[in-house]
């Protein structure tokens, strides 16, 4: 029943003494002829009912179907209505109280309400999100609202966020140091954690799949091979590690550069800051490469598939040998010994490598310290000279 009129009246209770009067068999008063004005949707409905000989209920059903069809049609051609999944994110108090002066520290995606999409947001989505936010937070809209009408701080934040995200280069720089992922990068599980888990194999995939998915966004080469499942073939697994050991990352750290002091015109000062920024960038990049490498090392060490592949290889070789030697026990022993030898050599090599790495790092540190010391000394000497 459509068009139900809600009446505000409350009818009194039926008196106990009331008995329904007997029906008199009377029908309603005679009807009169009238001429309708052929206008409006109501007339159309009236005509449709008459032409298609529909009852009110049937017509309601038709109208409902028609409405749904139109709705679907409108939704399909996306005429301005479709926001490409930008949606509406709640704006917390701390988000709205952001300081536009501290724009470098703000999460631009959160400001535009795109924190569910982040680096995945397309340019179109960013545009839509920006428009939505501007419509809501434009200072003109707040003119009549009580409170500080000059408070357009958040609007400035929105503009800053748009400035960063709409420029591909600036967006790349921000994506490189996205604070949201920065936090996630910190909690990579240790070897111990994985191994002590009651089901280490499943846990490995559960933990590392999203990590690699996340890291894949930095790759210059797309598509990036993903971790895959536990039953991946040898080629797949090898391809995966091969790719990740030769990872070509676009990640860079210009975003964290220290601003050149605006007030000073000193060329030296500027050059100094620039130099510092450059070295800082290089250091960060190196650290990041090392971090990724460590991550891949960790994954390789824990990957249950590697063990399986090794075992399979071993079994295959053994089967081959057995076929060849006809199952000589001596051969097996020999083989085992060889295996052990190899393992030991490998381990040693690894250890050595590790040590070398440490040594290298140490050496670097020492070098840096030496350089620093030299610099200090130079400076001191200069100071002395000046004095």
């Amino acid at each position, binding site marked *: 029943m459509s*068009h139900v009129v809600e009446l505000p009246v409350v009818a009194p209770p039926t008196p106990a003494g009331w008995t329904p009067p007997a029906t008199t068999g009377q029908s309603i008063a005679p009807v009169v002829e009238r001429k*309708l004005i052929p*206008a409006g949707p109501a007339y159309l409905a009236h005509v449709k009912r008459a*032409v298609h000989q529909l009852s009110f209920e049937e017509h309601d059903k038709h109208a409902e179907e028609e409405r749904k069809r139109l709705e679907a049609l409108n939704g399909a051609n996306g005429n301005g209505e479709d926001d490409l999944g930008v949606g509406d994110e709640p704006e917390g108090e701390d988000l709205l109280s952001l300081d536009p002066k501290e724009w470098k520290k703000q999460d631009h995606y959160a400001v535009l309400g795109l924190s569910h999409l982040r680096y995945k947001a397309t340019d179109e989505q960013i545009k839509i999100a920006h428009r939505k936010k501007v419509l809501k937070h434009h200072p003109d809209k707040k003119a009549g609202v009580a409170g500080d009408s000059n408070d357009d701080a958040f609007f400035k934040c929105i503009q800053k966020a748009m400035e960063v995200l709409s420029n591909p280069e600036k967006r790349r720089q921000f994506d490189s140091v996205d604070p949201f992922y920065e936090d996630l990068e910190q909690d990579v599980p240790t070897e111990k954690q994985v191994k002590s888990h009651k089901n280490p194999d499943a846990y490995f995939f559960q933990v590392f799949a999203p990590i690699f998915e996340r890291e894949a966004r930095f790759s210059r080469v797309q598509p990036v091979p993903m971790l895959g499942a536990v039953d991946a073939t040898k080629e797949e697994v090898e391809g995966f590690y091969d790719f990740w050991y030769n990872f070509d990352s676009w990640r860079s750290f210009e975003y964290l550069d220290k601003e050149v002091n605006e007030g000073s015109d000193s060329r030296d000062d500027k050059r100094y800051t620039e130099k510092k920024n450059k070295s800082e960038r290089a250091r960060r990049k190196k650290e990041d490469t090392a971090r990724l490498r460590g991550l891949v090392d960790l994954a390789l060490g824990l990957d249950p598939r590697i063990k399986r592949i090794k075992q399979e290889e071993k079994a295959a070789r053994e089967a081959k040998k057995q076929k060849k030697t006809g199952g000589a026990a001596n051969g097996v022993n020999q083989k085992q010994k060889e295996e052990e030898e190899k393992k030991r050599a490998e381990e040693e090599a690894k250890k050595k490598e590790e040590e070398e790495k440490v040594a290298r790092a140490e050496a670097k540190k020492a070098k840096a310290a030496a350089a620093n010391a030299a610099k200090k000394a130079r400076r001191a000497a200069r100071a002395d000279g000046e004095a």
Partner: protein
Amino acid sequence: MAATKANGSADAPIEVSSAPAVIGINFGNSYASIAVLNKEENADCIANEDGERQIACAIAFHGEEMYIGNQAKHQLVKNSQNTIIGFRNLLGKKFSEIPADKPTNSAPVIQHPDLPDTAAYKVQVLQPAPTPLPTSKVTSAAATPSASNVATPRSEPTPTTRILTVSEVTTIFLKSLVQSAEDFLGRKVHGVVITIPTWFGDEQKKALEEAAKDAGVAVLQLLEEAGAAVVATTSAPRSDKDTLGEDRTQLVVDLGASGLELSLLSVRQGLAYSLATLSDHTVGGDAIDDRLIKFFAKEFTKKTKTPLTVAPATEPQDKRAEAKLRLAVEHTKRTLSASTGAATCSVESLKDGLDFTGAINRLRFDMEMRPIYDHVYKQVQVLASSAGLDLYDIDEVVYVGGSASLPGLDEALAAGLSEDVVTPFTAGTVVGGGVGDPTTLLARGAVLQAKLLATLGEGSAEEREVKAAFAPGHALQSVKATTRTLGLLFPEEGAENALGGQWVPVVLRETALPARRAVRLDVEVGEGARVGFEVWEAKEGVKITKEAPPKLEGDEDEEDEEEEEIETKEKTLEKEAFLAALTLEAHKARKVDGRLRTTLEVQFLVNEAGGLAITAVEADGGEKVTLAIAPAS
């Protein structure tokens, strides 16, 4: 170099709008307005390129130029003989049918020299001389010795007379309206709905349709003005504030420039038919103008001691002054409608080189216009009585036309109507182009109707039949309607009123059939968890009680003055015929304020023959009772 595109020739980067390119035109005798669908598919009245939403129905010829609309109206001052106004009312009329007695200050209507019995206008125009052939770069062997590369200057335009039939004038005007709409939309217009007055006969409709066809636009429908008003007022989204039900009796007051048209409509859930109509050409905006310019002319005479008689004026000088004043008071009227303060009227060199500036406030204006308001009120009374109704039966007043924007008119009418009548002024929808804005209402209604018609398909025979039902005089337009109000009566012990209980009207009288109405209401549940009600036919009426006014002490000496009685009106209700009674058990009663209450839904279905089917359901899946009453044989 790549081929460059001319500016603006590139495709629009995004689809502009999915709304169909249809327009609505309110084509009055004096003014026209255009409405289009905006992005939200709502109706919007648009301005033409002069920025006018109210486009004067006037065409003027001056030299080589042709002016259409409000610019043409200004030509009435100096170039009245070549200015054509008031042509709509002559559409489809033979020359012999046109009363010739009216003195005009515009181009006179004449008999067409060639076509028999056809009304036409004669205007003096300058015909542009044909452009000379461009000089050829290649001089032929037989070139004249004086051949030069300088273009031959155009010769002087030649003065000629041009004879235009009423239909041609209409075509020119409609074309300009459609052009304005196309410029606004940026697309070709596919269809148009044009409003017509109630008195338009078949001849007039045919003539208008042909004129529109010549203008190159498809007419979807010629819609009666009352119909456009209904569409515009009923298609507005309903809000909680609306006190008006979906079933109402509507009074359409169309006070245009050239006449008054009244319609009393029964609007039942958007389905409307006319109960009575009345048209009166003695009052209107022109009459208001007449009074106003007389007022200002008097003031001018008083101020400058220069005699000025206007409306009607006899001297050519006075005629000029009248035309000037007429243009000036247009502005004065609008200012008065828009603001509560005084409005000025300024004319430079009104007569004998004397300037005039006068002011009038609303009170003074209403005083001057009182006879017109009273006349309208009287006509409304005549209309209501011809429909067998009282003024108190009117639920809503809709104003149409520029002159109906005057708040004084509403005040004058409201005095006679019931207190809870809804007018655009009480609803506050007049200002700012709201739903009730009288000047744009019809055009907006027309475009909404055009939108509706544009969605109709033509695929199957049935679809074609649906479309045909919008043509004038289609069989589906004649319907049966109820004559009494059907409703529920909840019996009550010791009821105060004569009915003996709570009356709930469901199907009002004058409802087109077939009709379905459903109401939902709360019912208190007494002992025995039984809910019962009776179905009655009732007769609504208005009781008028006349009372002598309370005598005041001081009145004693004015005995000779006729005692005026105060009329108090009251809506009454009489039970007329008992139809049936229904009872059902309340299972879903709930406690509200310590008393048991349940929600009841009752649906009335009246079929075309007058048979009634009643369904009563207790909400939330309670008991359901049905009952059918056969129609009278």
